[in-house]
């Protein structure tokens, strides 16, 4: 089997690198300073795409794949591995969201962290999905492992709407949504170069997610195959030992007589 990616994945990789470089250039050089936030707005071109992707795309796909795994008519390892791959990338993106948000908070609020409703619910979501990845490592038969992981994934996703609406329900320090709210969808509080840079950031990180998914899914599948092969080897060895043991007993029985 070849270790190289398919041409489509390689093209996707180059597109991703190019669009990420363009995003960084637009964000750091072209985009103007914000009237209120100043230069710290440049961090939001990373913060918003990683947050959007992790919560709605990565964890959304994990949940959908988990539901499809639990549904008997569509149950397959494909959905389980898809859920796992997407969740791991989602945890990575959400960790980056928290990291960039903390740096932005240090500039804007003067502190890296505060127990704001949005921040706290996001941190809880991060811990829940780290827990999901940990549950996947708990030893059990593959089917049991996949079923309980799928249940944990679906339960964890219940926190996503809470994170989304936290800024409206509790109205603490974190600002409202820029696009994804009833009031802002048709009247976004961003325009011109800043809107285009943010849009490009979302596209770039979506391409990155697709590229990472292609590789991470393949890796999960190879790990699964390797696990099966090791299990089969262990069974074969055990059988061989049992066979040898049976042979020895027979000889022992024969020799005294």
């Amino acid at each position, binding site marked *: 089997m070849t*270790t190289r990616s398919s041409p489509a994945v390689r093209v996707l990789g180059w597109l991703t690198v190019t669009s990420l470089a363009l995003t960084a250039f637009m964000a750091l050089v072209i985009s103007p300073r914000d009237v209120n936030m100043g*230069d710290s707005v440049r961090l939001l071109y990373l913060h918003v795409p990683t947050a959007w992707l992790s919560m709605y795309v990565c964890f959304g796909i994990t949940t959908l794949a988990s539901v499809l795994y639990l549904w008997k008519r569509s149950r397959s390892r494909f959905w389980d591995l898809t859920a796992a791959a997407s969740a791991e990338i989602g945890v*990575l993106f959400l960790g980056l969201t928290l990291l*960039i948000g903390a740096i932005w908070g240090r500039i804007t609020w003067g502190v890296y962290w505060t127990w704001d409703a949005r921040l706290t619910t996001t941190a809880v979501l991060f811990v829940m999905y780290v827990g999901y990845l940990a549950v996947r490592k708990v030893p059990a038969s593959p089917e049991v492992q996949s079923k309980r992981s799928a249940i944990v994934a679906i339960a964890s996703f219940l926190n996503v709407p809470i994170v989304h609406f936290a800024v409206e329900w509790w109205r603490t320090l974190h600002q409202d949504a820029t696009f994804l709210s009833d009031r802002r969808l048709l009247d976004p509080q961003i325009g011109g170069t800043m809107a285009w840079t943010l849009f490009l950031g979302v596209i770039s990180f979506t391409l990155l997610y697709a*590229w990472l998914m292609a*590789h991470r899914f393949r*890796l999960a599948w190879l*790990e699964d195959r*390797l696990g099966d092969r090791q299990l089969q080897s262990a069974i074969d060895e055990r059988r061989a030992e049992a066979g040898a043991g049976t042979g020895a007993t027979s000889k022992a029985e024969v020799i005294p007589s």
Partner: protein
Amino acid sequence: MNDAGYIFAGYFSTFGILAAYAAWVVRRKRTLSRLLTPEDTT
């Protein structure tokens, strides 16, 4: 640019972490591909 240290720290850490993760995934995938036979992977 004001707060350039914080802003560049944010960009370097983000792209650094993403690049490290991507490199880990690709390298591990290649290692496992070599360990498995074509029959295992079909």
